[in-house]
């Protein structure tokens, strides 16, 4: 059985101009693997991640034929049960790290609180665990950072702190939304190694949302490519560069390259027909 099984997921927002469907009938499964989701801005990647955790703010709505976590239907859980799922079973590293940290609470306290809430550990053990997690995400001066507030952190430090916080509870599934977009390549590698290890050694399932195609191709096992709320194509990650859909090709061609400088970068020309294509299944 897969960890997560999503069938025909839709996320809808009422707007002044009628209903807007941010996610339009997406189906996929997640095993103990690294599943990448790529696609242009606004294609519904974050909304897909948030919908799994039922974090879509009303009046937005989440609908699906089913959305099962190890066989249990997430859509039928009470809000109270969902709170036990969030953070404990499924963690999400949000795209906006600083936004998701509490600005008036010291970083150490935030990690300790989460850890104690989920494990019931004592303060001392929790402090030690927090320092250990910060070290794991390559934060050098852990003791200073424990006593600091979020605004005193650099962009990449904030991102790593979020990751540390989400991993401290050892979730079954991690949804990481652009988790390394603010990191330099060497710290990025270290952070990816941590996630990689959790997948390989502890059998975690990872949903890795990113617009970095080279990174997804080299890091993930499988990729879903999203356009306008649907999956237009799926492939083995290491075959991403051979992807066929003109949309995926367009994304690949718009990357600047260090080895091949060009005056202007190619931009995507969107074909209206792409809107009408049915969603490809991401089930295995």
């Amino acid at each position: 059985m897969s960890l997560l099984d999503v069938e025909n997921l839709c996320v809808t927002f009422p707007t002044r101009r009628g209903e807007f469907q941010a996610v339009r009938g997406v189906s996929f499964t997640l095993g103990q693997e690294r599943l990448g989701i790529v696609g242009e801005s606004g294609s519904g990647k974050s909304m897909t991640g948030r919908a799994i955790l039922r974090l879509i703010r009303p009046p937005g709505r989440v609908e699906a034929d089913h959305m099962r976590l190890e066989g249990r239907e997430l859509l039928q859980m009470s809000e109270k049960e969902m709170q036990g799922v969030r953070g404990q079973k499924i963690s999400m590293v949000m795209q906006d790290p600083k936004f998701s940290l509490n600005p008036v609470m010291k970083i150490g306290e935030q990690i300790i609180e989460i850890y104690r809430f989920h494990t019931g550990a004592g303060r001392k053990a929790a402090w030690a665990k927090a320092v250990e997690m910060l070290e794991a995400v390559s934060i050098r001066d852990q003791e200073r950072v424990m006593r600091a507030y979020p605004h005193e952190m650099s962009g990449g430090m904030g991102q790593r702190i979020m990751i540390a916080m989400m991993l401290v509870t050892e979730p079954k599934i991690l949804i990481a939304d652009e988790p390394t977009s603010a990191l330099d390549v060497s710290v990025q590698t270290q952070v990816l190694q941590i996630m990689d290890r959790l997948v390989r050694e502890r059998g975690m399932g990872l949903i890795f949302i990113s617009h970095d195609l080279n990174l997804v191709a080299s890091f993930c096992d499988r990729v879903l490519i999203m356009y306008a709320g649907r999956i237009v194509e799926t492939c083995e990650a290491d075959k991403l560069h051979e992807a066929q859909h003109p949309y995926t090709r367009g994304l690949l061609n718009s990357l600047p390259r260090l080895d091949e400088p060009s005056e202007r970068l190619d931009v995507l020309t969107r074909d209206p027909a792409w809107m009408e294509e049915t969603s490809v299944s991401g089930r295995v």
Partner: protein
Amino acid sequence: MSSLEFENLNVWFGDGPDRVDAVTGATFDVESGTSFGLVGESGSGKSTILRALVGLARNWSGRMTVGGLELRGYKRPRAFYRDVQMVFQDPYASLHPRQTVDAVLGETLKLHGFSDIDRRIKTLLDDVGLGPEFRFRYPHQISGGQRQRVAIARALAPEPSVLLLDEPTSALDVSVQAEVLNLLVDLRKERSLTYLMVSHDLAVVGHMCERVAVMQDGEIVELLGVAEMRAMEVKHPYTRHLLEASVGYNPREA
């Protein structure tokens, strides 16, 4: 007119055991009408250099000039805020949650004394590739990449001559990134703008900038031209490491 000079810049935060020397002894120039890239480790002081220039990091020593004008303390002359605009690393924090896109842009335009607000808002949205349907939305009603485009539109609003760009495209998908980079290249040509940009993406810096400074732990460890970077003619091992790691994830490396 809008060249930038940094000479022996030091910036620090806090004191006692929690003092952080975020930047130490940074020296470099950005010629008027060119683009300069700051790359390097997370936490190495890149954003702090930009913040010190605009007066958001108060403890600093050394010399900073904009267009030959020497900066002092953290207050900046009125004209400075029009001429030098910054796009922040964190598009979430830099947009007010209760202001619509229209309000963000409208207020900035008013603040800088423009009158044809309506027309300018339309042009700005168009410039950054956002359709008219986004004009009356709140930040939480648009995606991450769309928010960053709003932040860029706001920076362009007062028609500055210097743009400080802190990871301007790291929240953008590759196609929008290409659009925004093309836009920045065009704007620079049309209006002979000067860019100082921070990016961890060496391909982006290679595309945009003539010269690059590589930072590690508060210091500039290497200054180099883009041609040297492309040719891997680098001296410092950290620069080499950055270049080699920029091709993708390699599990055996760190």
